[in-house]
Structure formats: structure tokens, C-alpha cells
């Protein structure tokens, strides 16, 4: 079998704090400790790689979720929601309706135009624009 010291004749060395142990045993012990440490380090690095590549998303703010699931009716809150989600046609149409209800037709019209720009095929936006003078 091959001529390597690791397999046949471990090189002699000493461990100072344990003079009673035979040289080859001490050397073997050192090698074992080093190998175990090495494996632990490798596993630690693997763990680090897993940890870094782990995806964990954050929960959205309550305001953002409310804009989507329970949209407000008042104009300032709708405007705040639209600042968060400027391409939300439903919010744009809600804001337009709120402007109309508040007697602000020009601003309502602008919102319908905005909705139609985002979604040219949106039936409600088109219908309201057709109805307006």
C-alpha cells in the first residue's frame, strides 16, 4: 500500500502537556482535533452561506394594507394611498368619484384621464370621460 505517513508511519511529534502519551498517539490526537475543527469550520461556513441566502420578507405597514383591502373614502386619505400606489386604477377612480362628490369636477376629470392613461381599456374610466363635457 502507498508510502504516505498518514497511512503507515505518522511523523513523530510531541504534545508538551501530556508526556505520558506515546508520540504517535499524540500526533494522531492532534490530527484528529485539527480535522474536527476543520469540519466544524466548514460546516459553520456552510451555515453562514445558508443564512445569508435565506429569504425572509417583512410585513407591510398597516396603512399600506388598508389602502388595498379597505380603501378610504375621504380625499386626503385617498391621495395618501395613491402616493403609495400611483398606478392603482381603483384608487384613482375612487378619488375621482370623491372629487365629483365634493363638487370639484376639474380634478375629477383629471383623475379619470389619469385612470385611462394607466388602463386605456378600463370601462369605467372611459364611460365617465365620455359622459363628461
Amino acid at each position: 500500500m502507498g508510502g504516505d505517513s498518514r497511512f503507515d508511519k505518522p511523523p513523530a511529534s510531541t504534545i508538551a502537556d501530556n508526556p505520558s502519551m506515546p508520540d504517535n498517539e499524540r500526533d494522531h490526537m492532534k490530527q484528529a482535533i485539527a480535522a474536527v475543527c476543520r469540519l466544524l469550520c466548514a460546516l459553520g461556513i456552510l451555515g453562514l452561506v445558508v443564512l445569508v441566502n435565506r429569504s425572509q420578507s417583512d410585513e407591510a405597514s398597516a396603512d399600506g394594507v388598508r389602502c388595498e383591502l379597505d380603501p378610504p373614502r375621504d380625499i386626503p386619505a385617498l391621495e395618501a394611498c395613491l402616493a403609495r400606489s400611483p398606478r392603482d386604477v381603483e384608487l384613482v377612480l375612487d378619488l375621482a368619484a370623491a372629487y365629483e362628490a365634493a363638487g370639484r369636477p376639474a380634478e375629477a376629470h383629471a383623475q379619470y384621464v389619469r385612470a385611462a392613461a394607466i388602463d386605456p381599456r378600463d370601462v369605467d374610466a372611459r364611460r365617465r370621460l365620455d359622459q363628461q363635457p
Partner: protein
Amino acid sequence: MTGAVIGIARGLNAAYFVGTCVYCLLSYSSFAYAQFIKPQLVGWIPGVAATHHQWFWLTVLITTPTLVPALRRGPSAGRVVAAIYLGANVCLGVWLLLNPVLLLAGPNSRTLVLAMLCLVPPFALAVVDHLTAVRPALHPIEPSRLFKGAAAASVAVWLAYLLLIPWYIPRTVGVELSWAALLLAVVVSWLSHLMVFALIYLIAAAAVALAALLRRPQAEYWTLAALCAGALAFVFHRVVASALSFQSAESWVLSGGLSVLFVAVWSGVAWQQPAAGGDAASDAVDVWFRPIANRLLVVGGLILLPLIALGLRTAVVHFDWNFLLQKLGVTLVWALALGWASLTLPRLASIVPPLSRRACDRLAVAMVLVGLAAAPAATRVARWSGEATLDPEFVLDRFSALDGSYQLLRSLLKTNAGADADLYRFLKAHSTLGRISASPVDVNFADAFHATATPPPHVFLFIVDSLRRDYLSPYNAAVTFTPATQAFAAESVVFERAFSRYGATGLSVPALWAGGMMLHKQYIEPFSPMNTLEKLLDGAGYRRFISDDHLVNLFRDTPATTLLDQQIDEMDHTVCATVTELQSRLEATTTDPRPIFAMTRPLQLHTARLVRDPATPASAYPGFVPGYAAQVAAMDRCFGGFIGYLKQTGLYDRSVVILTSDHGESLGEDGRWGHAYTLYPEVVQIPLIIHVPPALRATMTAEPSAVSLSTDITPTLYALAGQPPRDLGDLYGVPLFAASGHPPPVRRRDSFLLSSSYGPVYAMLRHNGRSLYIADAVQGMDLAFEMRADGRMERQTMTDVIRTVNRRLMRDHIGQIAAEYRFTPAP
């Protein structure tokens, strides 16, 4: 007996048993059994399964000559085991002739056991190979060899796939990357490859160092073998088992069994190879890679690695299962690169500087740390540049479509934690419920069918499998090859925002019949209580003409039903053949006063069918996938012919004719082909064109630009038959036509759950069909899309709000389905 011959013989032997094992696993998987095995979708598989026990003798014939030298000259123990192996094989062959077990395969635990038992014979042969071979003399592995091999392999693999990028860019739809984005991705890919291969080195070196403590020459070898088995099991578990929806425990057992088999067979072949150059200075690495150690192969292989990678991808790309086979191909390229790089470097000792073990370790740790920093650094670069097109979320995803190795690397490294992991567990617990028992639910859109002043209209329902909306001229002005559909659309309502509730046929078509979503199981039987379409046909007294496919069994067999296409394999169902038969059937029964219902699901556009078609020149359909476009054109011609027939016979003005599909199809978007278990926009967007008899149309209205779903079709038929359906809630469809003066409301605030048929992948469709959120528990990722003004959907940056809102709705909808079917997932 040369090593190469033994290698080929063992490969064929293993292929037979692994093929049998895969067949059993597909049969065990309830959806794969219901969709592929039982309906015999792949023509040659039933024949092979039927003669499987006879093919076994071919493996005996191939294997026996390779064992003759061992029987004559091997060590005595080897001779005995070889003789026992051959004797056992003969007994097994005789037993198989009397008990052709593969014919009994089905979705039950017996089949799973059979799958595992299939691994025993090739494993036994590997044991024989080890016992009959001359035990290789081994020297210890030189400390820096593993590092140099891993580092060189990482560069070889990275370069191989980098060189292919110019080839893929013009052939991959939707991957528009600026030069800066491409450069960024290439650098991230390089550093990531270095990181992964450095990690492989660190683990292998540490394990080998531990093995050396045993002071046995073989310990290093078997440690390498065990590491290979572990790595392979990890890849199988991550790439294969999850894509086939195996549960975690099953997945690990199967992945472990298969990987141990591969390693054992490989090792057996390695031991049977003659030692190169007398093997005076072999170490475990040399012996392990003996099967690929031919000098010409080593040099040629490394140089031709890009072509090998290209060939492996090209061979499977069009019928792959969402990159499953491509990722396995990349795994093979990695293994070959590791082998060839490790074999080459010792021969280049004069060029490659010597490195101490400590230096190797330090370099490897540095490579890992740099690799870890790559993705965050890319994010910073994107922010610093202020260039939106450099957003790593998009750049790296799109780059994955071009670089298969980077794609595999990302999918192996990605893990989920916290709310993400929790969601994906929830989705898995509610999906592919093959082996749980569930009772049918009675679904009724109408309590009773009342008499109507006019007879119900005839109904002709064309559900063209895999038909994309953008290959029809009513949806895409660039299409010039569907004139008949264009003419039909001009007389019909074209629903612009139609979506399938389910990706893929398995649940999409039954859901269309049910008019709503169902428990994620194939299938709850009897299906009749949920089959609201069948209830309409019964109630209104329709006579039926239905194409005979694997789903038709979900309809009751009644005298009112005539099956079409009975003599044609399901994969060969075409519009042309079906309408020809239907016309002759209708002509033979013109005096029958009952209303007609005809339904077919032609498969001429299905990927599995298209790969058999002769190539169509690209110049025939510029801007489109030629083979697919040619079949759409063929379908259009026959569909137009049938519409002409209906007009000629006067049936057209008394008929509802629906042209739709059960799902769309990926045709190269981001490298994807087919539909598998995905819910990408091109898969869930479908055409939906409905012709209503003019007299009826005059009394009804529809809103074509509002969102519509495949599950709306059956309630729509109720409405058109004069049986207004009741509103059954979020999970069910609504009629798309309403009485004039009462237009159907735009469901702009409603949210709709979409689902894959074959895996834990779900989507939420919201904002009148403009926004699509996909949560993919197979790949552990989520994506958001938004509809552009031209109707196409475009990837959108994911935000916490999109994620939180859609996940909340998704859980709510899935919970509703579970409650409807009284299903409680296992904790």
C-alpha cells in the same frame, strides 16, 4: 473485457432499473398518474410498460458477458457473488415473466415500494463489481489537489455557460439586459460559482482529513463517495422531488436511494476500469474519476464543455418540466468539470504553483466570503448608479434564463424562513392531495330547471389545449395566420382579460365544468355532484358529443352522450379530425329535436405533440414560434370550416360557440417552455371568444374589457340557456352576459385565486385582471406582474404591500376551499 464496454453495460443496466423506478414514481404521484400515465399521453411508454418484463432479459443478456471474466479468473469470493447474482437474475426474470409488476403500478404505497425495490438489482451488481475487481492501491490525496480541482472546475463551468450567452440571447424571449446589467450579472455569477465550488472544497477537504485519521487507504475514497452521494441526494431533493410534489420524508428517502445507487454503480465501474499508466501513484480522486480519465476525453471534454452544456440543454428544453431536466444536465456538467479539472491539474504541475493546505483553506474561505458579498454588492451598485435597469431582482432572474449553471446554483442556495417559509408550508399542505380521501360537494347554480319560451341554444365548446391568446389575431394585430378566428371574433364577444383558474389541464378543465374552484386533488369522485355543466346538460335536455379523452370519465356515461375521436390517441386529437367526425354525426341525426352540446379539447398545440412535428421554417411565421404558429394556422382553417358548416346548415344563428383554452403556454419567455406547474402570465392568460345567437345577443350585454375567468363559462351557459345562475361566492364563476340594461358589474375590487394543477403554486389576480401575484412553493419564490396598456403583463418590483395583501387573500381563499370540502391539512 475493456473498461468502456463494462461502463456501457452497467449504464444500460442502471438505465433499465432507474427507468422502471422513475415510471413507478410517476405512477405513485397522483397528478402524474392521472395526467400522463393513465391517459397514455406519451405514446411509447405503455408499450414499454407492457413488455417491461421481457426487456429485463435484455439486461441479463447485456450484463452476463461482462461478468464472465470474473467468473473465470476473479477471486474466489468474487466468483461466488457473481454466480449468485446471475442466478438471482435468472430467478427474478422468470418471476417477472409470471408477474409483470409494472402493469400494476398506480398511485398507491405498493408502487412506492416497487420503486425502491427497483434500485436493488443494479446496486447488487455494483457490489459484485467491487468484489470482483482488483482493489485499487491508493496514496493519500495531495492536500492542494482538491482545492485546485474545485477552483479550476468553477472557472471552467462559469466560462462554459458564459460562452453560451451570446447563443441564448437572441433565442430567449423577454430577456432584455443592458450591457451594464449583463456585466453585473456575469460578475455575480462568477463570484457565486467560486463560492459554491470553494464550499465544496472546504467540506470535502474537512471530510477527507477526518477520513485520513482512520489510517486506512480506502477511507478517503469512500468518504469522497459518500460526499458525492450526499450532494446528489441534495440536488435530487431540491430539483426533482419538489417539482414532482413529493412530501419531504418521501423525497429524502427517494433522493437518498437514487443517489446511493448512482454512486455505487459509478464506483463499481471505476473499480472495473484498468488503472491508467499502471496506477503507480493513484489517489482516491484518480480512482473515482477513472471512467472519464481517458487523456483525450479529459482535454477534449474541458475544451468542449460549452458544447456539452448546449447539447444537454437543447436535447430537453422543449419538453422540460420547468427546468428540471436542464438542471440535472447542469449537475452533470459540474461533475464532469470537477473530474476533468482534477485529472488535468496534476499534469500541469510545472505551471500551477504548489499550495499548502493552509493556503488552500484561506483562499477558499476568501472565495466564499467574496461570493456572499456579491449579491448585496450588486444591490449597492444598482442603487449607486441610480439605474433602474440594474435592479438585481430583475437582472439576476433574467440572467438565470441565459446561464443554466447560475440558475441551478441559485435554486440550490435559496432557502426561506419566517413568513415566507410559513406560507410555502401552508400552500404545500393544501396541494396535490393525492392520497387523502375527500367527499364531493353538491354545487348547484340552479335549484331547478324551468321551462323557457325558446329552446336553449346549441353549444359548441372548443377548449384548445395550450392555445395562447397572442397567437390569435383578435388579441394580437401582428397575427396574420388566423383569418377564420378573426372573422368569428367579428361576430362574437372577445373577452380581453380572460384567465384560466388553473394552470395546466388537470384541474383547469374540471374546474371549468364545475364553474368554480375545487380542492387540489385529482380527483374527488364521483365528480357529478360538482359537475354543474353536466347538470345543465341534463336539466335542459342536451344531447352531447364529447371528445374521448382522459377527463371524460368525470362525466357520467349516458345514452345522450356520443364520444368523438374514440379511435385516435388523445395526443393526436385535432380540431380538423374532431369537426369532421362531428359534422358527419350531426348530419346523421338532423331530425333529433334536442339541443346539441359538443365539446372537444384538441391537443395539437401541446408541447408533447409539437416536438413530434416536422420543423417549420422560421421564415414562415416571422416573430412567432414557427411550429406552434403552423399548428394554430391549421387549427384556424378547420375551425373556420366548421363555422362555415354551421352557417350553411342554419345552426350558427341558434348556437353559442366558444373558442377558448384550458391554459396558455410558455414559448421561450425567460427560457421557459411548456406549462408544467407554473402560473406565469403566458400560462394563465387565455383567449375567450363567445358567439351568441343574434336574437339572444340583442337582449343581453357583456363587458369585454372586464376580467373574466374560465370558471365563468359554465355560469354563462346557464344564463344563455335561460337559467339565471345564483351567485355562489368568490370561488365560483358568474355569467359574462346579463340582460340588457343591467350590465354585468366590473369585478374590479374582487380578487381571484388561481392555482397550478400539479404543484403548490398559487396566484392572486386583482385590480380587474391588471395585477398578478404568484407564490411558488416549489421554487420558494414569489413574483408580481402588472398588465401594460397593450394587454401584456410585465414583471413588477415586489413590495411589502403587494406581498402582504396578496398572501393574506391567498390564505383566505385557500381556506375557503378547504372549508367547502371539509378538508383539514395535516399539522
